[in-house]
């Protein structure tokens, strides 16, 4: 008898836990409300089945626990009942699957006006690249990456010249504007994941993967790596700030482009050379003096 | 083989027979020796091994932007001063099919309890297998000499060498194991172990000519795999 009561308490406790839990999902800050809704739907249907099945089990424990001499029913099969249950389950499952597939269809089809953001991951950090005025990102190559070209951009690619480079693990996004995240990794698997945006995808070395979302709440969010990437996995954090259009544009204009970077480096190089020349001159003068 | 006779059980043909066999007691594969059934299931499992290798190869080759070496040129061999594409491979195929044929005949003679024919044919099969392994060793050394390594090759995509050595190596291992067993079985046939039902050294099971068929299944399987490797690796 006590067994039935404890099982009953477990079921009731589970339901109460779900209702009163202080731990539930972090507030959503993107367009993927549909995912949350499907989860809620699955929760209702699945939770209902769970409660029903377990309550029925508890009922059986109460009602049919062992009595000497009681005859159990002898009925090997009940075709009709089995058929009803099969079809009911199939329908239920189909009802859960349909919204899932519809939302997946939205997830893999990126809106035309989405801004591409190249997220580059390595052990253990992030950096970002935005398209410049031409609205297109240049092609890249891992072997091109060096101190002068931290993103490995193809120097001959005209689209790459005006790319905006954000050499920091913190990036800003424009509110209410769809973003296509293009993920790239130079070493191992990573995953650019912001719980509030609900969406994620692995960054796989050797290919470029993508997903999209539309942030719809201004604020700062933490970026987590969601695919195990070695011993520093847990420390591979970043940040994202969703801003209003004005703030975003202001921020954008302060960022340097690939062209700027090259120019800066050329200038640096030039100045280095000049410095050496001057030094030599000074040195020479000194030598003259001594003579 | 042809349908066995089972006391008190009438065998039917086709899918009806399948349903009846499956629904019957004691055995599902009527008249199939335990060892033979085991070999078949093992080969099924091994098929999945080779399939996974070939699928990996296909995926690797399909997704490389670097040019894949042309097997027709890589595996060409000079015959009388003229490069003949895939000459060695054609010879290897020829040898392996020959050995497969002799094995099939060995099984047949085994069941007819023709000890001599069976023994000689197994010996021929073993020698064929040995020739095959030898030719493969030659092919490997030739490619290694030309600079092909598991991690690189002078002709193009590095994966070419990786997959080539891995898949032919794995197949070659199968052939080598088969050759060893062929020699053992050849000895056992000639020594008459299968005629008198002598117990095996390892498993202590009684000898029977069905073991020749079991080994035959393995050997044909090795040939079968080669058919696929030939098509996908050398002709693609």
């Amino acid at each position, binding site marked *: 008898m006590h067994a039935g009561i404890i099982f009953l308490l477990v079921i009731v406790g589970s339901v109460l836990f779900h209702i009163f839990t202080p731990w539930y999902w972090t507030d959503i800050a993107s367009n993927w409300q549909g995912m949350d809704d499907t989860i809620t739907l699955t929760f209702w249907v699945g939770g209902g089945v*769970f409660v029903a099945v377990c309550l029925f089990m508890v009922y*059986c424990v109460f009602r049919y626990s062992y009595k000497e001499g009681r005859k159990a029913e002898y009925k090997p099969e009940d075709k009709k009942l089995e058929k009803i249950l099969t079809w009911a389950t199939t329908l239920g499952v189909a009802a859960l699957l349909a919204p899932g597939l519809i939302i997946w269809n939205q997830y893999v089809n990126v809106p035309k006006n989405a801004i591409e953001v190249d997220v580059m991951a390595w052990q253990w950090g992030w950096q970002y690249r935005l398209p410049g005025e031409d609205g297109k990102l240049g092609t890249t190559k891992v072997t091109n990456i060096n101190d002068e070209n931290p993103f490995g951009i193809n120097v001959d690619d005209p689209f790459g010249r005006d790319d905006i480079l954000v050499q920091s693990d913190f990036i800003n996004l424009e509110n209410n504007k769809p973003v296509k995240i293009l993920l790239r990794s130079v070493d191992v698997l990573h995953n650019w994941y912001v719980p509030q945006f609900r969406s994620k995808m692995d960054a796989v070395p050797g290919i470029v993967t993508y997903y999209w979302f539309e942030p719809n709440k201004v604020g700062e969010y933490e970026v987590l790596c969601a695919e195990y990437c070695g011993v520093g996995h847990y420390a591979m954090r970043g940040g994202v700030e969703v801003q209003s259009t004005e703030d975003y544009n202001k921020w954008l204009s302060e960022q340097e482009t690939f062209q700027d970077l090259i120019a800066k480096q050329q200038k640096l190089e030039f100045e280095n050379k000049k410095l050496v020349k001057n030094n030599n001159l000074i040195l020479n003068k000194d030598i003259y003096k001594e003579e | 083989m042809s349908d066995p006779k089972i006391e008190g059980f009438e065998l039917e043909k086709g899918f009806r027979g399948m349903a009846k066999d499956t629904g019957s007691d004691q055995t599902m594969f009527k008249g199939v020796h335990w060892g033979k059934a085991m070999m078949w299931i093992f080969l099924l499992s091994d098929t999945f091994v080779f399939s996974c290798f070939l699928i990996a190869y296909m995926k690797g080759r399909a997704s490389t932007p670097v040019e894949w070496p042309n097997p027709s040129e890589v595996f060409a061999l000079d015959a009388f001063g003229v490069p003949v594409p895939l000459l060695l491979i054609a010879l290897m195929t020829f040898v392996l099919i020959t050995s497969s044929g002799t094995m099939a005949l060995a099984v047949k003679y085994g069941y007819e309890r023709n000890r001599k024919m069976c023994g000689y044919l197994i010996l021929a099969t073993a020698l064929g297998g040995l020739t095959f392994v030898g030719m493969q060793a030659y092919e490997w050394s030739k490619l290694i000499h030309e600079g092909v390594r598991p991690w690189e090759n002078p002709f193009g995509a590095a994966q070419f060498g990786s997959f080539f050595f891995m898949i032919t190596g*794995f197949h070659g291992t199968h052939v080598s194991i088969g050759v060893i067993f062929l020699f053992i079985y050849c000895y056992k046939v000639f020594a008459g172990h299968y005629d008198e039902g002598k117990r095996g050294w390892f498993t202590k099971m009684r000898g029977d000519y069905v073991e020749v068929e079991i080994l035959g299944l393995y050997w044909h399987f090795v040939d079968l795999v080669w058919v696929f490797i030939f098509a996908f690796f050398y002709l693609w």
Partner: protein
Amino acid sequence: MSDEYENKSGYQAQSSETMTGTGSGVSPDMDYVRPAENPEQDLYHAHSFIEKWVFCQDAKVIGVQYFLTAVFTGVVGLILSWLMRLQLGFPGLAGFITAEHYYQFVTMHGMIMVVYFLTALFLGGFGNYLIPLMVGARDMVFPYVNMLSFWMFFVAVAVLMASFFVPGGPTGAGWTLYPPQTILEGTPGHGWGILLMLISLSLFVIGFTMGGLNYMITILQARTRGMTLMRMPLTVWGIFTATVLAMLAFPALLVSSIMMTLDKLLGTSFFMPTILKAGEVLEYGGGSPILFQHLFWFFGHPEVYIVALPAFGIVSDLISVHARKNIFGYRMMVWAIVGIGALSFFVWAHHMYVSGMNPWFGFFFASTTLIIAVPTAMKVYNWILTLWRGNIRINTVMLWCLGFIVTFVNGGITGIFLGNVSVDVPLSDTYFVVAHFHMVMGIAPLMVIMGAIYHWFPLVAGKMLDEKLGKWHFWTTFLGAYSIYFPMHYLGFIGVPRRYYEMYDSPYMTSGVGLNEFISTAAFIVGAAQLILVFNIVKTMKTGKKAEKNPWKANSLEWYTSTVPPEHGNFGERLPVVHRWPYDYNVPGAEEDYLPQTAAPSEVAHTEVEKT
């Protein structure tokens, strides 16, 4: 040599006899069972201690050997999980758990529990012990190969354990061993550790293939007279289907292990693209990490069912015996097992929805995955319908079964979340996943294992385990485990990613700290509670009640052996002849509330038996 085979007390060759049982007043024709197809199997009887207990060819001893070895690895896995929970619940408390160590614990815990503990325990342990007994065979069909299978497994375990002691320690790549990080610097144990892991896995596969061939052929080709496939206990069906899956899925693991070993040792680039590490380009290029994931999950998903299907089968038998009622919808149960097994080869990439594979695969795999939910749900319905209108003994065994139903339904339903592609996106790689698979393929099968131990202990050891201790064991384990994994789902909702050594002060986790401490505490208690079982076994072996023959009044053949515990050869002189399915409980008109599978039709002509 031949004297070793002298048939013990001269077993009767089955084929000489065609008739069994002579019913009173009923025509004996109705009991006719056709003669045996298989000749009497010769058995190699042991002559020395070593042959009897070490290099033994008796499937029952091999089963116990498998069982004990698997339990040993399981204990190692349990201790690792304690260490992990110590770090997660109380970070910094145990200073020796560095991030490297933590990831090594995670990896070894996962691999040990899934492959070396659960797979070996269900198939190697229960499979070896029960298959020959339940189908009415003298032994496995190839006892020698069976012995090799165990020793190969033993070597695999030894190699795995050796990796704890090599330089760099065991691999810390996560049990999925995803390249490229698995074999690169930055992952603990990327040198010796991963090599030993791959070697150990390959040995395991080879060893398992030998055992699996035995299980399959024994079930297909060595059943006793009258034992049709549709009269086999569901335990055998579960183990059989799981074995088929293993034979077809382990090749993918073998292949991926071999390829990764080559990547590591020879520098091939099967799974390795161009990689920039610490400013240097490594000598890899052109490979595809996702290919590994496909191969791995082509093994990995069937592997889930390799663990689950035997549990399904065993629990069906336990429920039926202890509810004193026939299993409801036997045929449906069988087809569900077979259907789940077949479908499991078409769903693997639902582990990879966010892996960056071709996004269009999502539609295909979500559909196939959710189709599996239907046969699985049917099994659940049939279990509870078996309880319905039964006469349920609420003993320890039944409690474990009820615990299984609760945890399995819970875990199965969270599976619908994760299988449904777009719902999986926010939840994948979070603690929701961890909670889900622990509930459904950790705790639920464990409940079945425990129930099976209490159920079959009288058969194996000849003594009854203590009921009172058993109930304490059950309630601490069940309530503890449930309170570990049920709340853990909610950590996943918050968005806490899995495989995090530490969350720092991340805003997602500040609210979950208390929860984590609670979960850890529960985990320590549940782990320690297993000592109750150890104590129970020790106590029972010393002072326990001697088990009578067939103490549970069950129908299946393993309880109808010549002696308890069964001797080598299982059934004495004559193999049993089977006339019915093993679930005839409470048949109207029968004197007892059970009818053994061997009861001949003429003996039960006066009852209302429906199903044979």
